[in-house]
């Protein structure tokens, strides 16, 4: 097994554990410390990061896997988790393929707008797929957006750090590599 493969497996394992930690933070830490105040969707920020930074094919399958993990922390049906996550990925890719920026602010804006898009997509998909669609929860989702914006900055730094540690060809400049293996095909 080559070094790059080992690093890739390690990266997938670490990102999976981080995703578990983010979900646990949101479900078992935040509500017991700050009550019913909406928690930042750390898992969603992570999904945006993966969709933005990772090669597309790898990102798609890994995000599907994360969707499966999500259902362990919620009653969300798998169909809802996967369709809404795919919608979010498509949203991120629209910007990924048009705007090339590595700035922190760009990521924050993308994470926040991604959260907004995810909320809308979720409501619409819920009306389409579920017999008893979800309510809008306007204020709750609005506060979540605010929290996501604030938390996206440290989360980006943290994820970027991990991402770089397990990169076989770590980037030293401001730009990051998106395709690490030749077998992965960009759409």
């Amino acid at each position, binding site marked *: 097994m080559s070094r790059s493969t080992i690093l890739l497996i390690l990266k997938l394992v670490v990102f999976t554990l981080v995703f578990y930690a983010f979900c646990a933070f949101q479900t078992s830490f935040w*509500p017991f410390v700050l009550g*019913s105040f909406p928690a930042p969707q750390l898992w969603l920020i992570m999904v945006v990061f993966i969709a933005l930074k990772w090669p597309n094919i790898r990102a798609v399958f890994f995000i599907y896997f994360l969707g499966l993990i999500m259902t362990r*922390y919620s*009653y969300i049906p798998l169909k809802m988790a996967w369709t809404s996550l795919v919608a979010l990925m498509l949203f991120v890719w629209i910007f990924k393929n048009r705007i090339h920026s590595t700035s922190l602010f760009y990521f924050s804006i993308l994470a926040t707008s991604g959260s907004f898009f995810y909320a809308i997509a979720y409501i619409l998909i819920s009306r389409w797929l579920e017999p008893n669609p979800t*309510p809008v929860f306007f204020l709750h*989702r609005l506060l979540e957006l605010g929290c996501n914006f604030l938390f996206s900055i440290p989360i980006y730094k943290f994820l970027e750090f991990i991402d770089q540690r397990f990169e076989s060809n770590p980037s030293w400049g401001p730009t990051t590599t998106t395709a690490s293996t030749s077998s992965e095909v960009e759409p």
Partner: protein
Amino acid sequence: MNFLNINFKKAILILLMALLPLISINMEQKKSQESWFAQPLSFLSDGFQSLFSGLSLGVRGTTAEYLNLINIKKDNARLQSELAEIKTRLKLFDESQIEIARLKNILDFQKNTKMELLPAQVIGRDLLPDHKTITLNKGKKHGLKHMQAVITVSGAVGYIFRPSEHTAHVMLITDRYSVFDAMIQKTRARGLIEGTSKEGGILQYIDRTEDVKAGDIIVTGGLDNIFPKGFPLAVVTDVERKTKSASLIVNVKPVVEANKIEEVFVVLDAAHEDFFPETTTAAN
């Protein structure tokens, strides 16, 4: 003219020297009366003494006040600290009292029921606002199974939908996927409570002729032997009487606020427990 060859200057000087003590001795003998020439001197000395005495008093007073102020500040800080400590202790005491009362209530409930109950702690909430679930710190290892009822002393909470080895996920009454067999306590009209994922739910299939008002208690139906019969479930908040519909739309709010739950009971066996007092009387 100076036959005796006396030096008058010296003589006068000597005389004066001798006289002054004599005068002073004489003055000492008449203490009650101050001599005329001493009076202005005394006046001035009194004035100066009074002035400096006043000044001294002022300085001493100011110094004392300053020192007192320092002490007061110190005392104040000490007392503030003591007060804060006492307040903290009082708060802890109050918390302990509340906790004791709550635990006593739970213990009494557990003792006085026929049901087989397992206490559990809430360790998590749902990841998304679109669903209303909680996670318990007990799982299959502790005997928990799918579709077991979860209750508190005040009322029903939900049922287990996904038991894991060490934890269990509970669907609350308010989740939009949940459906509960329910009865209006007053009229015994049966219906189904469906969650809305908001704060409450809707009691459906209640005949429009039923007398339902805001404030009526909704209890568990007990048909499935999952929940004990007649256990509080929700309170009616609003009743909609649509002209075209054969049944009422009754909006309800759960008696147990899901956001505030810390400890619950999992009903391992409902043992046909009936909380309707009149049913028991009728049966007897």
